[in-house]
């Protein structure tokens, strides 16, 4: 089972992101379960949503306490909420930012993690470009498709089209595909760097 925890703020589509991720996994023949953290979802307040993906039926109903991957929709949460709590060894982190992990002030914290698993994507900017609104969720899912290959970008695009219609769907899909290529490039660069080091 692969477990993803998404952190963001009320209004950023955190819950919708988890739901779309589960739809993408379902479309690829997997079992998936998405659920919100059931808080009072006020605009701007920290919000958490979860998604589990497995090859068999998922019965577990506890919150995800040891995620395999973290998606952080709002980097201002990094110093407000312990978003890294329970992250598994070898886990993945995808943050919505233009800055580096060092610039965000968490370079020291992620020192022990695999560098090719630490990824960023300017999802808000991509959303502004393609959707016209600062809603980073679909772009982050596109980025996530490049993070570990768990789901394909086409499945993400199909999930976006299941949730949205018309121009909103077009814009979100475009943002997701742009984010996918951005992260894919980053993965290649960091993997290249890692190989260069071992050589």
């Amino acid at each position: 089972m692969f477990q993803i925890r998404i952190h963001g703020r009320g209004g950023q589509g955190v819950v919708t992101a988890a739901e779309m991720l589960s739809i993408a996994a379902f479309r690829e023949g997997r079992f998936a379960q998405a659920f919100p953290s059931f808080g009072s979802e006020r605009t701007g307040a920290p919000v958490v949503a979860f998604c589990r993906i497995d090859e068999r039926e998922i019965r577990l109903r506890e919150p995800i306490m040891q995620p395999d991957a973290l998606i952080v929709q709002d980097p201002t949460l990094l110093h407000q909420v312990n978003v890294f709590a329970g992250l598994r060894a070898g886990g993945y982190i995808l943050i919505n930012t233009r800055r580096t992990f060092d610039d965000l002030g968490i370079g020291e914290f992620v020192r022990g993690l695999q560098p090719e698993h630490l990824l960023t994507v300017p999802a808000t900017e991509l959303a502004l470009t393609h959707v016209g609104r600062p809603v980073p969720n679909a772009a982050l899912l596109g980025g996530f498709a490049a993070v570990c290959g768990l789901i394909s970008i086409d499945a993400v695009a199909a999930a976006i089209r299941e949730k949205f219609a018309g121009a909103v769907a077009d814009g979100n899909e475009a943002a997701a595909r742009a984010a996918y290529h951005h992260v894919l490039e980053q993965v290649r660069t960091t993997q290249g760097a890692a190989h260069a080091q071992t050589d």
Partner: protein
Amino acid sequence: MLKQTEGSRAVAEAVGLCRPEVICAYPISPQTHIVEALGEMVKSGALAPCEFINVESEFAAMSVAIGASAAGARSYTATASQGLLFMAEALFNASGLGLPIVMTVANRAIGAPINIWNDHTDAMSQRDCGWIQLFAENNQEALDLHILAFRLAEELSLPVMVCMDGFILTHAYERVDIPTQSQVDAYLPPFVPRQVLDPAEPVSIGAMVGPEAFTEVRYLAHAKQMQALELIPRWAAEFRAAFGRDVGGLVHSYRTEDAETIVLALGSVLGTIKDTVDELRARGVRIGVAGVACFRPWPHAAVREALAHAQRVIVLEKSLAVGVGGIVATNVRTALAGLATPIHAVIAGLGGRPITKASLERVFMDAMADKLGINTFLDLDTTVVERVLARERDVRRSGPIAENVLKQVGLAAGAS
């Protein structure tokens, strides 16, 4: 058709496939998504000639459902928590009059203190109101139970509550198989009421009954509910034949063949319990699970049969009868009367507290080490409780309890 969707949406689609004629509801979390979806379906004409009636309260919702059902319409509503309590008087009327209304209860805690999260206190508070109560383990079951519920309600002329965990199921996206209209039509015959308010053939429904006949009316209500114990397994088998999967039934046993310890529970927590049990089984622990799918009528014989060979029983429940302890556990004691089996109630998940595998494993191991009493509160913060009690001993005007507990929880979090 297989689909990845929200539990509320799946239930709304199932209710729609049952061809309801009157839907009335008043919104309350976490039930709202269900009736919102049904409202859209009615407005689009997909459920014609179904009528959606907006009402001003839950009391009105149940009253409209009673009127509609008495007029011969297949009637549905949904509620939760305080909304169910606000219906209480009308609930007894619906069952007392023998009206086959189906209602979803998206289980949620009862205040005060106000709490919107999941537990079973709402449904349990109405366990003796004469409605049949079915509990869903996952969203497929929640969907399927509604189809079964309409058939059961109309055959017995009794109302049925389908209970599904608020948020945990209502707001969860998972895979469900939505049946086709022809499958549902083949399983659920048209509503043929036993009593109808019809101007062409006037009758009285709900006249006063004095001591000369009241006992007999109540006896028949009991006898009719007990008939469900025979009908539910039979129709679950028919459901399996028609839809190719299990639903309902009375009690489901999981890995109990040689189990020394059996954990009994209701609702969505059964999934987490089964995963915990699988891990303990892998380590050689002889433990199994009994899931109660039908809580009212209480399946005495099926519960006894499921638990009789256990050396100990743990009843894990999301409700508390203040001054008694576990509500489900008290029912289990009646089913195991005459046996010496220790029965440990574990009160868990109140007001939405997560029930984790780690906590379950700990409490199951404690039970097997004979460390549990009659009632245990899972993950209770005893330090906080003792501090609040100490303050009450020391200060006469100690203040409101809930706020004192919040203050102590905050202090404890700040100190760590």
